[in-house]
């Protein structure tokens, strides 16, 4: 009798543990799906997007809907998987779409040589707002549209400069 009692106690305990784990797992799944398909927050830092974004680090929200629908256009801030290192994501501004002619200074620090490039089919030309320190399409060329991960639309941190980004 005692053994049966013990067993049923264990069974109810195990059932409860299973239920709790299922809830946590479902929550994590929901989190993953919202993060990849709807909107996610990213910490952005570095000098390449001055004066739009700060050097010390801004938390921005990026939505993942419009790049799937092909709605990314000129002037949008985008998250792009870095062509040089696929584990990193960089934030830049779209300056040219496919077929556009883009003129840029090769090295604005030391010379004023200007070059013009045509963005090939299915590619975008991305550039940082701070042309002096940004590592962007001027170095690695146009990037395939498939590398775009999301469109940045809102800054949430620091709190005093909260607001929409773009244009």
């Amino acid at each position: 009798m005692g053994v049966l009692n013990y067993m049923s106690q264990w069974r109810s305990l195990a059932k409860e543990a299973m239920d709790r784990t299922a809830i946590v797992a479902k929550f994590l799944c929901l989190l993953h799906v919202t993060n990849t398909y709807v909107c996610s927050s990213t910490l952005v830092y570095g000098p390449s997007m001055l004066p739009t974004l700060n050097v010390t680090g801004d938390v921005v929200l990026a939505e993942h809907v419009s790049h799937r629908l092909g709605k990314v256009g000129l002037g949008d801030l985008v998250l792009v998987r870095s062509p040089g290192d696929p584990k990193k994501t960089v934030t830049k501004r779209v300056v040219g779409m496919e077929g556009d002619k883009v003129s840029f200074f090769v090295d604005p620090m030391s010379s004023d040589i200007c070059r013009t490039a045509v963005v090939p089919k299915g590619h975008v030309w991305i550039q940082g707002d701070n042309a002096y320190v940004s590592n962007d399409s001027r170095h690695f060329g146009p990037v395939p549209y498939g590398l775009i991960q999301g469109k940045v639309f809102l800054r949430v941190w620091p709190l005093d400069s909260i607001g929409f980004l773009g244009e």
Partner: protein
Amino acid sequence: MATRNVLWNYSKKIFTFGLIGLTASDSLASISVVRDDCVLVEKTCLVKYKFSHGDVVVFSSPSNHKEKHIKRIIALPGDWIGIRHCSDVRRIPEGHCWVEGDNPSSSMDSNSFGPIPLGLVKGRVTHIVWPPQRIGAVEKRIPSDRGQAF
């Protein structure tokens, strides 16, 4: 009232199932259709972007992000590769790879569009699932005429 309850429960179940399915297909493995074949695509290699020579991968075409292609990785960053139909030898830049089809005579691959960024790779093909006469594992191999990348 009862039917409404049943409907609510059903929709809740479908929603949960969809969530779990989507997460699993994003982070573990998924089945994707390319042309006439169904293939099993493994995604765990995307965590560290670790690939080896001869892996068959799915990637979105650099010229049209909606198209998916399946090709074999011939060279990885830092390798030197000779371009077909021309005597040039070029180095694969950091974060890129060289992909080629198994049929060298008719394949739209890196010989025409150059090395592709690893970020475009969506997963590694492990098995063919459909059509049934070709079910089986996809092996890792390096075409003999490409030899060892040097």
